[in-house]
């Protein structure tokens, strides 16, 4: 399946129609529901989640260390990191991506936001690494 076909399916199982509503369709409770910070999950109706023991993978440890170095060098503090990786990315990505995937994305994002790298440089680097990787292990 192409990724664009998957996007429309990334919604909760129980949901109300929510495409470009008129202003009078948003009452206060619905507005607060939309504004609710995605990490504030306490008290939400939900079903039990299966808990599995999992060792950290090498890329996860590397991501953690990278983020700590960004704090050490004064690029962000822990609270700004949490805002970016738990809230700014939005509900769909918060629930849909792995824990350290969110750390990694927010590390890349802050370097672009604060102009330590340009998005063009980041895109070109990802493409360069992808090509190098394809040469080493062709699909």
């Amino acid at each position, binding site marked *: 399946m192409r990724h664009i076909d998957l996007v429309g399916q990334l919604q909760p199982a129980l949901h109300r129609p929510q495409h470009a509503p008129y202003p009078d369709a948003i009452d206060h409770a619905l507005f*607060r529901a939309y504004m609710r*910070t995605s990490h504030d999950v*306490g*008290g939400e109706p939900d079903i039990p989640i299966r808990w599995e023991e999992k060792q950290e993978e090498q890329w996860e440890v590397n991501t953690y260390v990278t983020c700590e170095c960004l704090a050490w060098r*004064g*690029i962000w*503090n822990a609270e*700004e990191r949490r805002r970016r990786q738990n809230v700014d990315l939005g509900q769909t990505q918060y629930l849909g991506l792995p824990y350290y995937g969110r750390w990694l994305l927010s590390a890349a994002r802050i370097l672009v936001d604060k102009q*330590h790298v340009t998005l063009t440089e980041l895109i070109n680097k990802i493409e360069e690494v992808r090509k190098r990787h394809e040469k080493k292990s062709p699909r």
Partner: protein
Amino acid sequence: MKRSHHAEKSTGKGDPQCFTGEAGPAKFKVGERVRIKNLPDIFYTRCQVYTRGAEGTVAVVTHESPAPEDEAWDNTDKPEWFYIVRFKQKDLWGDYPDAYPNDSVQTEFSERWLEKA
């Protein structure tokens, strides 16, 4: 490379130690009853929705630090006192079983979220 305000301030001292003495006198004491304010929650907070409007008891006056709503944008100008507040589970969840009346939960707030109950 320009370092964040926060990093410069905390280097060699640690965080939250670097904010000690900057919040003025604490407004609440251990054992006081407080209510959690229902302030707007937009963009960022660490004040859980399930505590809004609930009453609890100050268990610990912890430390001084910028509130998360400020620190998340590297604004360190106005540190506040932080408090650990203890709630009865029954006061947070209407359908909490009566069989466990002494169950409690503790969570942390910056001073702006608390008012005298």
